[in-house]
């Protein structure tokens, strides 16, 4: 065995290398476990969302699908299916009903499943097969309206079909959420025979795709430039969709958690390296006196570090993999679907974190270690010239780089870095003042209190550094707790258990009263009624939309399609005024739509309502909570502008399972009223949110354990000095209780200050994160101000006493001899 490894094995025995190895293992395993787990969650979200889309990706078109779209999908080995949706009249014996019919090919759905039932208004069993040729599945409401049962015949155009199932949910239905008529599904093979699609019919053709991510990416790049105005590429997590938003925020949280893990690991590595170097300074000086050349020492340490890296990375990756498997298996009992397997390729992140940590935290310190003068053996106080600025700068850049790699962006790392720098300055200032005050209050150290407080100032620099580390760890913990509870509360607020799950459309003014009576009898909660008039924005500030967007590409949503317009005396639930005056006689525009169309207060829009042009200035801008499931509108007009037009009314309701059947029955007396059931989509979103909340809590637990280990490493880094001091005190006659009290006071005070400053820092960071990263409302977190100091005092005092227990136990003689 070479000298390097003999020396290394001996060092391992002493525990110094072991501490470094442990820090590396913690670093690699934390990042690996979170990285892999996030990957699995992301894959899982994508799958869940894909279920809502019935595919991984979808291209939708107003014209029949070009053949080459399918050829290209074949060429890229993508699975595909087709869906053609249109509104048509359906006939049965004596009744007829306008319905939303989808014709699908045999492979449909590519993702997710239908829910079908043999009982009218049943809750449904899943089915991944579509109706066979000659069959049709109709929704319970459609069956009620047509007065048909399973086995009966219905007619669509020239063809006749047998009802074989009641359709509870069509997996792709959410993408056409505002197809208001009752739904039915048939086989694509029968479509031609119906002869219902004629030139000019309003039909939506969809090509559904599923397959490898890379192939889907290739397909997207191939098709995007060819898409015209009536064609659109859709992904499951497209922005703006409720589900996409929810997942987006969860991903931000998990990224944040992972970034914090990176920081904590970095701190652990830095602390362990510093301790290793400190304990090896004299060893290197002695080896030099014995004839070890700097070159040899460089080789020895490099080989040691490299071996350490290999061992640490392998163990860390293994533990990381095991931890995420453990989390996933704990979660599997709670989740409705199994998590997909993580991608092995994500392992590089953990290994890279280990390598970069070694490079930036160990190597610069080690290079200084090699430079130590052998003269130190004769002059133990000889100054060791450490280029601390260089070490800090390298460590700082390395940490920032790691965060950027981890988050694949600069925003989050920049916010975190700025916050940490500010905190560091603040900690240094406050800590210095507090420690000084502590000392001035304790002249004549006789009690544990006085000794404890006085030692805070006596070891000013190491204590300030420790205060900073404690503060950061507690702060990061508080931030995570704050973000977690914010996020979950936000979601729950967004989608409470009794969120509306049905919409009523096409309600005439005179029907409102009867419907109100029916819903009141059934105790069904209902939102306000909103009148709806269809209209299209045709000009902005006198310039026509066609002139503004001649290519019809990049047209803002506000101009792109016919909108539902409404009026209301009050701004409405889930809406918030951000500019202007809602009651003024003008338009109220949703904020994102206004930004997209580059509109601000005072701009004028011309709206075409049934051939009449109305021009009004924008007098207010609102934010809309699209997740609230309340009727929401891009454009609201003054009552005076709309009241003369015939309007339909819309409302949303929450119907629980027990009320469903009587409600549908009651509504069957209003065949013209359209009911949209979004309950299943809602349930799916709620289940995703539930899974996310649990996942986030587990990730938080992981981070907290990593944090505790960092705290332990930090306490250990000043252990020698404390051991020496404790031993001296005991040699001088101090009882163990006094030494223990002094340690308790010292650690307790450090913890208290750290907790307090951490609460302040966390509050500031949460503000930044809420406003800039999560795009939610800023709020105050009183709980953090209590948790911070309490965690600080309890955890740090406990860890401190635990780590320093040798100070109290071991005979002082042995300690002094060993020092």
């Amino acid at each position, binding site marked *: 065995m070479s*000298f390097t490894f*003999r020396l290394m094995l*001996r*060092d391992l*025995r*002493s525990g*110094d290398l072991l501490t470094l190895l442990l820090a590396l293992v913690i670093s690699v395993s934390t990042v690996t476990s979170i990285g892999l787990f996030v990957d699995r969650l992301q894959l899982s979200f994508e799958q869940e969302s894909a279920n809502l889309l019935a595919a991984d990706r979808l291209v939708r078109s107003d014209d029949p699908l070009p053949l080459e779209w399918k050829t290209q999908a074949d060429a890229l080995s993508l699975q595909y299916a087709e869906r053609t949706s249109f509104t048509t009249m359906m006939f049965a014996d004596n009744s007829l009903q306008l319905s939303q019919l989808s014709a699908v090919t045999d492979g449909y759905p590519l993702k997710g499943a239908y829910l079908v039932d043999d009982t009218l208004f049943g809750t449904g069993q899943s089915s991944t097969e579509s109706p066979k040729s000659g069959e049709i599945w109709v929704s319970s409401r459609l069956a009620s309206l047509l007065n048909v049962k399973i086995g009966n015949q219905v007619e669509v155009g020239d063809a006749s079909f047998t009802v074989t199932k009641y359709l509870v949910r069509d997996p792709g239905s959410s993408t056409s959420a505002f197809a208001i008529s009752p739904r039915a599904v048939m086989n694509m093979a029968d479509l031609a025979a119906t002869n219902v699609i004629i030139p000019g019919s309003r039909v939506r053709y969809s090509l559904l795709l599923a397959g490898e991510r890379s192939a889907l990416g290739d397909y997207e790049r191939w098709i995007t430039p060819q898409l015209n105005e009536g064609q659109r590429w859709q992904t499951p997590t497209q922005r703006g969709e409720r589900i996409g938003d929810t997942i987006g925020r969860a991903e931000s949280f998990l990224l944040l958690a992972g970034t914090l893990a990176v920081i904590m690991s970095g701190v652990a590595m830095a602390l362990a390296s510093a301790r290793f170097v400190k304990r090896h300074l*004299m*060893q290197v000086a*002695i*080896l*030099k*006196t*014995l*004839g*070890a*050349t*700097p*070159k*040899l020492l460089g080789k020895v340490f490099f080989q040691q570090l490299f071996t350490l890296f290999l061992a640490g990375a392998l163990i860390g990756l293994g533990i990381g993999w095991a931890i995420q498997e453990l989390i996933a298996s704990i979660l599997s009992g709670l989740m409705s679907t199994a998590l997909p397997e993580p991608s092995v390729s994500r392992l590089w992140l953990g290994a890279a974190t280990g390598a970069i940590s070694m490079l930036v935290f160990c190597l610069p310190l080690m290079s200084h270690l090699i430079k130590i*003068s*052998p*003269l130190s*053996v*004769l*002059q*133990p106080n000889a100054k060791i010239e450490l280029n601390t600025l260089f070490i800090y700068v390298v460590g700082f850049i390395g940490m920032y780089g790691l965060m950027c790699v981890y988050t694949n962006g600069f925003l989050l790392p920049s916010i975190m870095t700025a916050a940490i720098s500010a905190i560091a300055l603040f900690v240094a200032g406050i800590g210095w003042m507090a420690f000084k005050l502590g000392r001035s209050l304790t002249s004549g150290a006789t009690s544990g209190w006085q000794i404890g407080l006085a030692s805070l100032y006596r070891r000013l620099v190491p204590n300030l550094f420790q205060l900073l580390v404690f503060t950061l760890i507690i702060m990061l913990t508080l931030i995570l707790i704050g973000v977690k509870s914010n996020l979950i509360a936000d979601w729950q607020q967004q989608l409470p258990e009794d969120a509306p799950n049905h919409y009523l459309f096409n309600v005439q003014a005179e029907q409102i009263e009867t419907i109100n009576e029916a819903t009141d009898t059934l105790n069904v909660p209902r939102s306000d009624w909103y009148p709806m008039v269809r209209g299209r924005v045709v000009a902005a500030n006198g310039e026509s939309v066609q002139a503004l967007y001649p290519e019809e590409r990049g047209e803002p949503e506000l101009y792109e399609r016919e909108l539902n317009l409404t009026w209301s005396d009050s701004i409405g639930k889930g809406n918030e005024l951000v500019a202007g005056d809602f009651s003024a006689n003008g338009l109220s525009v949703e904020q994102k739509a206004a930004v997209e169309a580059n509109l601000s207060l005072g701009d004028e829009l011309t709206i075409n309502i049934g051939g009449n042009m109305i021009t009004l200035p924008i007098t207010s801008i609102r934010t809309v909570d699209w997740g609230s499931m309340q009727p929401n509108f891009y454009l609201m007009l003054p009552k005076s502008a709309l009241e003369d037009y015939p309007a339909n009314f819309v409302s949303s309701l929450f119907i629980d399972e027990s009320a469903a059947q009587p409600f549908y029955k009651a509504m069957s007396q209003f065949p013209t009223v359209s009911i949209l059931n979004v309950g299943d989509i809602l349930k799916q979103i709620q289940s995703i949110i539930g899974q996310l909340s649990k996942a986030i809590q587990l990730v938080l637990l992981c981070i907290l354990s990593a944090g505790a280990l960092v705290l332990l490493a930090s306490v250990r880094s000043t252990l020698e000095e404390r051991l020496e001091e404790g031993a001296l005190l005991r040699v001088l006659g101090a009882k163990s209780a006094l030494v223990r009290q002094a340690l308790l006071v010292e650690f307790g005070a450090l913890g208290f200050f750290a907790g307090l400053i951490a609460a302040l820092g966390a509050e500031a960071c949460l503000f930044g994160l809420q406003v800039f990263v999560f795009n939610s409302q800023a709020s105050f977190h009183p709980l953090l101000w209590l948790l911070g100091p309490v965690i600080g005092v309890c955890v740090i005092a406990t860890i401190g006493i635990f780590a320093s227990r040798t100070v109290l136990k071991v005979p002082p003689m*042995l300690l002094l*001899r*060993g020092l």
Partner: protein
Amino acid sequence: MASSTAIKVSNLTHTVTSNTGDLTILKGINMEIKESESVAIVGSSGSGKSTLLGLLAGLDVNTSGEVLLYDQEFSGQSEEKRALIRGQYVGFVFQSFHLLPSLQAIENVMLPAELKGDKDARKKAEVLLDKVGLSHRLTHYPNQLSGGEQQRVAIARAFASNPKILFADEPTGNLDEENGKLIIKLLFDLNQSQGTTLVMVTHDNELAKMCDRQLVMSAGQLTEKSL
């Protein structure tokens, strides 16, 4: 009797920079030490004894002048070269022993031979530890040994590389009288049996008297004390 020159020092000057300005610790020192000679460097605290020892052993770089070890220019060399020369010619014994706390007694003694790539390091270390009377303490760690025992391990380590010159910095400074005598005996026995040149910094007059020569360090100047 000494035959050839082990150490030759000409016009050795050493200046350090401190907060209060430059401070010249050694002022133009000239001396020669013959092979197998034992030399004590004595003087009051702060007179520059340890600084001189450090420069003689190549642990530090002098400001001006020259140090030759067996006719090899030593002082002007790079740290790399000096370390090689130290490994070849020099052994050390320190006042505070300086054993590596994480290594057992035998491992501490093996180090110099291991650094040279000697495959028999362990065997040699066992013999040396036996010579210093510690064959029963091979696997003990420094903190499990008494001060006297630690210094005996340090002496075994110093002789492990068969040094031509042994530098000792207050070797009995941290020991009681009895242990001090034992250490002195060991040092001189080994000095005699292996023909090693012994250069020792000490406050101990008795110890100094046992050496062939005594050099007195005072205010940065070195004078020979006539015996």
